[in-house]
């Protein structure tokens, strides 16, 4: 024995040493995302591209050094995600982790980020625990959360008389947060939850759950899953004749990629809240055009959010003249976030970035005028009402202040 070590160890050593040699003042972003799984359309390669666009728009350099960008696929495994993040912070010199489309992994990264005094900007993790009980100030929640998705839309639906709800929930951090938020929002608006069921994250067959939903007699079956899982559930709901039975299926956290995937036929008339729609004004359209040229798709909510987050961070680094996390964060909080994504944007001390949200309605196939023409903006939900106010936040570092 001994021999394989003799050959292998130097190899391992060499690889590690080179990896460890990071220059101190170089700013480095790491996009920790889903490159191949159910959320890869709404985040994934598009998120990486959005970050790249932001870096380019900023000029590609800060503090006299080239800005770097790396990415990795967390495969929806908390251990893979956390280990990648740890290695990025410890060995690869990453300053900011971006995106993290999986609430469980985001929560794990959040703890680690505070421990290492780095910064994480979440664009596609939905759980509001990031800025509530698990909040630490170093994790910034940029685009939406379970609160922002449930409040406005639930009220709108209940006002139309859709007041008995059945919840079909993905059994992980996001689903649990969403379930809680929906319970709050629905009962708060005078509706009633008549049943709920939790399913594993990557469920393929919903038949048994749909049967329970049908038997509950609820007027609406609300999904808290997201991505392909939601798409599958909606399809199978149709297969099992939910509509014939007079029930509606709705997903309050709907991404434009879901609408694109399912088609207007299935989605028309649905209302929900979005943080961003590419076809709102010239600014959003200009960005969308450039994004589309690179990826062949219109930017989604999370992707646009990443662009905004990266830009705001880089501005802070430039203004402060250092990438010291505490100084940078102070600047980020003290200055408004205004760009093509964010209107009336402000970063709260708990890490929540509040900005205007929009209640949209999915167009009918007949109303669609061009590709990706999917939404009609019904109303703007102003920033201070769209998100949970700081006074109600359970965040331990801001509570009682």
């Amino acid at each position, binding site marked *: 024995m*001994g021999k394989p070590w003799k050959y*292998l160890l130097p190899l391992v050593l060499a690889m590690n*040493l080179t990896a460890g040699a990071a220059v101190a003042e170089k700013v480095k972003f790491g996009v920790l995302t889903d490159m191949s799984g159910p959320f890869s359309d709404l985040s994934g390669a598009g998120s990486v591209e959005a970050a790249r666009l932001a870096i380019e728009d900023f000029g590609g350099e800060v503090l006299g050094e080239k800005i770097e960008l790396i990415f990795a696929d967390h495969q929806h495994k*908390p*251990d893979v995600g956390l*280990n990648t993040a740890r290695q990025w912070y410890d060995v690869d010199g990453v300053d900011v982790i971006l995106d993290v489309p999986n609430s*469980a992994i985001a929560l794990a990264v959040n703890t680690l980020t505070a421990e290492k005094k780095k910064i994480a900007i979440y664009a596609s993790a939905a759980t509001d625990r990031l800025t509530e009980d698990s909040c630490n100030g170093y994790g910034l929640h940029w685009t939406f959360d379970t609160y922002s998705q449930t409040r406005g839309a639930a009220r709108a639906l209940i006002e139309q008389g859709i007041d008995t709800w059945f919840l079909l929930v993905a059994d992980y951090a996001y689903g649990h947060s969403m379930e809680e938020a929906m319970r709050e929002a629905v009962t708060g608006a005078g509706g009633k939850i008549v049943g709920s069921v939790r399913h*594993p994250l990557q469920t393929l067959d919903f038949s048994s759950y749909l049967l329970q939903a049908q038997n509950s007699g609820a007027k609406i079956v609300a999904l808290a899953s997201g991505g392909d899982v939601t798409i599958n559930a909606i399809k199978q709901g149709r297969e099992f004749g939910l509509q014939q039975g007079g029930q509606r299926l709705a997903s309050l956290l709907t991404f434009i990629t879901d609408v694109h995937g399912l088609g207007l036929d299935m989605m028309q008339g649905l209302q929900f809240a979005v943080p961003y729609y590419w076809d709102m004004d010239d600014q959003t359209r200009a960005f969308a055009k450039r994004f589309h040229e690179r990826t062949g798709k219109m930017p989604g909510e999370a992707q646009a959010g990443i662009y905004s987050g990266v830009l705001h961070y880089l501005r802070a680094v430039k203004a402060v003249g250092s990438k010291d996390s505490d100084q940078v964060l102070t600047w980020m909080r003290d200055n408004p976030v205004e760009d093509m994504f964010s209107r009336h944007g402000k970063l709260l001390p708990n890490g929540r970035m509040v900005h205007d949200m929009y209640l949209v309605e999915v167009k009918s196939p007949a109303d669609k005028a061009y590709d990706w023409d999917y939404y009609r903006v019904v109303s703007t939900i102003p920033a201070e009402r769209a998100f949970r106010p700081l006074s109600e936040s359970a965040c331990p570092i801001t509570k009682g202040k």
Partner: protein
Amino acid sequence: MANVSTTVAAGVAPASGGDRTRTLHRAIFIGLALMLAVAPFLVYPVFLMKVLCFALFACAFNLLLGFGGLMSFGHAAYFGMASYVSAHAAKVWGLTPELAILAGTAVAMVLGAVFGALAVRRKGIYFAMVTLALAQMVYFLSVQAPFTGGEDGIQAVPRGRLLGLISFADDRVLYYFVMAVFMGGLLLIYRVIHSPFGQVCKAIRENEPRAISLGYRPLHYKLAMFVLSAGLAGLAGATKAIVFQLASLTDVHWSMSGEPVLMTLIGGIGTVFGPIAGALVVVSMQNYLAHLGAWVTVVQGGIFILAVLIFREGIVGFIAGRLKQQL
């Protein structure tokens, strides 16, 4: 896999070894300890700790296969369950890390005793299937049991202080603890193999009817081996939970059961040191090919196929054959 280990052992020196073999083994142990002692100054300690945890896991698996003749395809159950228990004990009960790890190991042994009692009644491929299916039962329980945190796992597990005194916040401090656990586990395995108990297990593996006629009860020996192996796998899993501050479904998933199989196959089935080499290769590969995403699976599968088709003796088995020494 009786044939497997005998074919490997066939080209090697007699089992009793000799003074020369013993001296060589002692030298390897000391060399290994020295190498591990300096390693964290050269290599990222978290990576090293991962290698050590998996090396111990693979050694535990190999104890059962290489020396007990039983191939388990469900060792993730013990590894993962111990990882959950240890994480839970450290986080919720606030136990010190060494107690949390002991708790995890103990639970793994109990689980091993229950599953082992069921599984050792079968042999060969049946044994593999039964262990696999039992492990999958643990997986589904872990998905649903509240204490495991389902898809989220148990996160933010505190590393804590050894005996309540020495803080494990520093990676290097923790590393030396993990190294001690690993070396302890390895020494235990080594002693067991060379004990009278180990010799009886070997006799059973090679010729069960004969062992029965000599008055041994194979089921008892197999079960004891199984429990020991499960316990050591649990020790590895419990330690990993403290290192990474996380216990998750990955640890109990059946693909985790495949990892020690691959490591042992690459390193050399039925060799004492083979699984360590195998773990180093596999973990390094996973680490440095991580950016390739799903290609890692493809490469790993390819290695599986090649190892089975053309390199069945494994790295250490190959070297042992060349040196005509048991390693």
